[in-house]
């Protein structure tokens, strides 16, 4: 008998069993969908946390202040040298005039300060470089570099004043990243266990049928096959259902999350990563369904 015919029979029996054990199939799919839902939310949460952390990171920088009489070309020379460093992602130059304009803008409501500036006549502010590192832990190295160079025109580097805060933030962020990943991993593990147990329970209720099939002369693969087909169907339907639920859900949640973190658009994230998301859901669903079935059925085949 050809493999093709056997394969066709396995699919037919698997589909029939799935359909006729309607309640069992529905319950199993519901739990699987719930599991995929949790996994999907973990992905979203990861993206959200990443945006928040990046947001924080982008707020950290160090400033190098130059002496009042430092010539602009020398300052720009320092800027070029700093830009050569591997750890540096961005260097912004703020000239004396820009600094003054920013200062005025910031304190335009305060008449006293405006008056004081008028009184001084001269621009009391210094030119500066705002340096942003690729990673918060790099700031120490950048400051060391500046210290070693010992530029005569550098007045001060504010890292040394903010060192404690920057280090603290940097360590908090790496802790959040690490423990977040661990927590996600743990939750994913629990979700997978739940899915496995559900499939196991479904197969447990059908264990007598498995025994009967063996006793009337079916091979182990002829019995296992339909259950694997069932597992695939569970996975596909659960994944499809989860993705369908995520459409309205992400859309509804987006405005609220945007209030929290401005540059995080959940719906946009879902849509632009849809292909990956689709693949993750379906592959996870099908893998969960088939692997669980495969493991769960083993002992009942030993008859």
């Amino acid at each position, binding site marked *: 008998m050809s493999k093709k015919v056997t394969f066709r029979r396995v699919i037919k029996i698997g589909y029939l*069993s799935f359909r006729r054990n309607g309640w069992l199939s529905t319950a199993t799919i519901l739990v699987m969908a719930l599991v995929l839902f949790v996994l999907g939310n973990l992905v979203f949460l990861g993206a959200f946390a990443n945006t928040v952390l990046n947001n924080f990171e982008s707020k950290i920088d160090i400033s190098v202040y130059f002496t009042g009489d430092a010539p602009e070309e020398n300052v720009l020379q320092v800027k070029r040298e700093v830009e050569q460093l591997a750890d540096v992602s961005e260097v912004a130059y703020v000239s004396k005039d820009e600094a003054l304009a920013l200062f005025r803008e910031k304190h335009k409501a305060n008449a006293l300060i405006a008056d004081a500036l008028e009184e001084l006549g001269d621009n009391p502010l210094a030119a500066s470089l705002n340096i942003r590192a690729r990673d918060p832990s790099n700031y120490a190295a950048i400051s060391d570099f500046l210290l070693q160079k010992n530029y005569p025109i550098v007045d001060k580097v504010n890292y040394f004043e903010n060192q404690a805060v920057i280090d603290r933030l940097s360590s908090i962020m790496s802790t959040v990243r690490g423990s977040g990943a661990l927590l996600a991993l743990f939750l994913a593990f629990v979700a997978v266990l739940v899915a496995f147990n559900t499939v196991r329970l479904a197969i447990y209720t059908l264990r007598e049928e498995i025994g009967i099939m063996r006793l009337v*002369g*079916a*091979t182990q693969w*002829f019995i296992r096959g339909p259950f694997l087909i069932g597992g695939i169907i569970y996975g596909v339907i659960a994944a499809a259902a989860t993705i369908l639920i995520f459409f309205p859900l992400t859309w509804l949640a987006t405005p609220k999350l945007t209030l929290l973190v401005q540059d995080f658009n959940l719906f946009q994230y879902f849509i632009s990563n849809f292909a990956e998301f689709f693949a993750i859901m379906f592959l996870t669903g099908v893998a969960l369904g088939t692997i669980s079935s495969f493991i769960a059925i083993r002992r009942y085949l030993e008859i």
Partner: protein
Amino acid sequence: MIFFDDVSKFYNHNTVALKNVTFRVRPKEFVTLVGSSGAGKTTLLKLFIREEEPSEGRIFLDGIEVTAINRKTLHHVRRRIGTVFQDYKLLPSMTAYENVAFAMEAADRYDAEIEEDVPQVLELVGLKDKTQNFPNQLSGGEKQRVAIARALVNRPDVILADEPAANLDPINTWGIIKLLQKINDLGTTVILATHDKEIINTIDKRVIVLEKGEIISDQEKGKYLV
């Protein structure tokens, strides 16, 4: 040739289900296995299809040691034995037709054969009108007949029937017994387990009597006198 070679089965070390059972069944023979319930009839049949393992002894079918076959290849020998189980063992999510067809599909039979043989055998057991019913839509006797149809359909070398008439009214009982006799006449070995005195005395073939797991008599053309 079926050969039980000094077979024993104990449960929990001290409960004896079968004890030193030895007998041969020639091809095309009709053997009735007799004994009150608990005498070991069902256990004996279960050991033959390896639904259970003997504690001691060996069982052969045409020179093959059934008790030594690897589980993964056990289906070969099971396809040669058609079993009518006492509790029917029908697949609840399949119709009568599908239950019978399953045995053929599992045995790698061609679609054309299946489509031809299944309706025939269901007609033979008198279930022509209920082929699309699920087991829970059938009476006890009807389920039993589906089980018989399934046991027959692969044209096995041996038919094991465990109380196949237990749930049937007298008319149907005789129908089933005649059917088994007819199958036997066509060349299939039949081992029938029953405790129905009337059936045994009417069949008028070899009778093996079991009591408390032991064979106490084995007679050609036996009567059940106990």
